[in-house]
């Protein structure tokens, strides 16, 4: 969604090249976790300046997921057998291995479009629509943004609102919360599709500090109501002495979530190069608190080449209802999830991006990154055999992206 105004300055191209009215950016991305999930994504993003400062944008994404991801069940010293969420068939997990489920493999298409109208020389209004679909999930959304410049465009304030309505109809239907996973049969189900509504509100401030420095501040408020449980994830109930799993229950998450994120960004010219540093603090009423630091240094080797190393660090505290496992005989909590993505984790992404501008002004970008997710492999409270298992194997993923942009 672009809120830049076309009629007076902001954007650069190569000096002397004719300015194009249409920018098209394309990219393909491959994501591969060692022995787990692989994803392929293709994106086209087109922005066109109509007369009078109106700007239209179209963004299309295709992605294909395959492989398997942890179901949330704990590893065991014995061979385990799990029923597929659809109820048809089983998959087995070797002793000492993390149970992985491949049900979610899927393809998804998402399309979004927006139109920006200048209300006056310093004010812009953007309206957009969004839609996405995959075999078990669809989402429709609309958004509105108002941007205004002050102080000779040194200060920009933006207000954004978005609303999304999602429908979830998982394979086999939605399991009842804490339903026991039965052997080759469907556990009790909830009726119909799940739905959830999201309201996002954000407020942004950008300030030019001097000729070489820009800072941005953004606050995002988000409220999600409806079905937020992952219908394919399990929580194991283990024996209080041996730690062996006795039953696997379908997880249950609350149906309301309020999130807050505060993001600060600094962009600074250092010699002929650029430094980008951002920090995000996130908190929600599920008890998740996180901090993200992202540092990029764009080394400009002339007008046609840049090399940009990047390092991202992410720290997350676990959700209140996160339970790696439940213990037989203990009181059942209202909600529980063993989804590692709600657990405590430290993630690292070192990466490198290279941008080459051809003589005709087209830009080729190449990006390679390594994404490491680490968590509590041996939490205190791991009972019996669980103390010898790796309860959070490190996730190692490679990300490779190739992009081509014209009309910049």
């Amino acid at each position: 969604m672009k809120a830049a105004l076309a009629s007076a300055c902001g954007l650069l191209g190569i000096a002397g090249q004719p300015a194009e009215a249409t920018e098209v950016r394309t990219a393909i991305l491959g994501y591969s976790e060692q022995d787990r999930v692989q994803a392929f994504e293709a994106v086209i993003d087109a922005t066109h300046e109509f007369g009078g400062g109106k700007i239209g944008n179209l963004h299309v994404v295709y992605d294909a997921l395959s492989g398997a991801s942890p179901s949330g069940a704990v590893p065991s010293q014995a061979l385990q057998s799990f029923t597929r969420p659809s109820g048809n068939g089983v998959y087995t997990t070797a002793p000492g291995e993390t149970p992985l489920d491949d049900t979610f493999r899927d393809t998804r298409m998402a399309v979004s479009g927006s139109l920006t109208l200048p209300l006056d020389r310093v004010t812009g209004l953007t309206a957009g629509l969004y839609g996405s679909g995959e075999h078990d999930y669809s989402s429709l959304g609309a958004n509105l943004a108002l941007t205004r410049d002050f102080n000779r465009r040194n200060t920009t304030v933006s207000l954004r609102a978005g609303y999304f309505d999602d429908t979830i109809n998982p394979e086999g239907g939605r399991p009842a919360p804490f339903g026991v996973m039965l052997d080759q049969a469907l556990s009790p189900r909830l009726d119909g599709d799940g739905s959830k509504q999201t309201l996002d509100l954000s407020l942004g401030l950008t300030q030019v500090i001097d000729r070489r420095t820009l800072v941005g501040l953004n606050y995002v408020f988000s409220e999600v109501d409806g079905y937020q449980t992952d219908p394919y994830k399990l929580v194991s109930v283990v024996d209080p002495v041996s730690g062996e799993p006795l039953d696997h229950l379908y997880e249950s998450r609350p149906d309301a979530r309020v999130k807050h994120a505060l993001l600060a960004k600094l962009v600074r010219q250092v010699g002929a190069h650029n430094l980008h540093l951002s920090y995000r603090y996130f908190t929600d009423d599920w008890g998740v608190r996180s901090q993200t630091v992202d540092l990029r240094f764009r080394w400009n080797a002339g007008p046609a080449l840049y090399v940009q190393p990047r390092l991202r660090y992410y720290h997350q505290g676990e959700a209140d209802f996160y339970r790696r496992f439940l213990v037989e005989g203990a009181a059942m909590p209202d909600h529980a999830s063993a989804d590692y993505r709600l657990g405590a984790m430290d993630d690292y992404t070192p990466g490198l991006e290279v941008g080459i501008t051809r003589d005709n002004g087209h830009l080729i970008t190449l990006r390679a990154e390594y994404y490491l997710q680490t968590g509590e492999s041996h939490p205190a409270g791991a009972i019996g055999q669980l103390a010898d298992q790796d309860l959070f194997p490190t996730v190692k993923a490679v990300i490779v992206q190739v992009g081509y942009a014209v009309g910049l």
Partner: protein
Amino acid sequence: MMKTGTMRAFLILCLILVALAGAGCSSLGVQPWERDLLSAPGMQLQPDPVVTALDDHIYFSKEASTGGLGGAGGGCGCN
């Protein structure tokens, strides 16, 4: 719907930021003809919207946090 306390906090934050924008920041910045460096692609808050969108999607799918400079995240059944 939104809790009253949160709505109030959000509105107060809005007012503070708008006030800051209008008054407090007027001494900072550059003249319109001094934006040469700031107009370069490497100096934009989001130099590449495609990279930002792809990254956001990866991290929203693998972590519990949402929200970036671009604001709203879309829906997806990502695992």
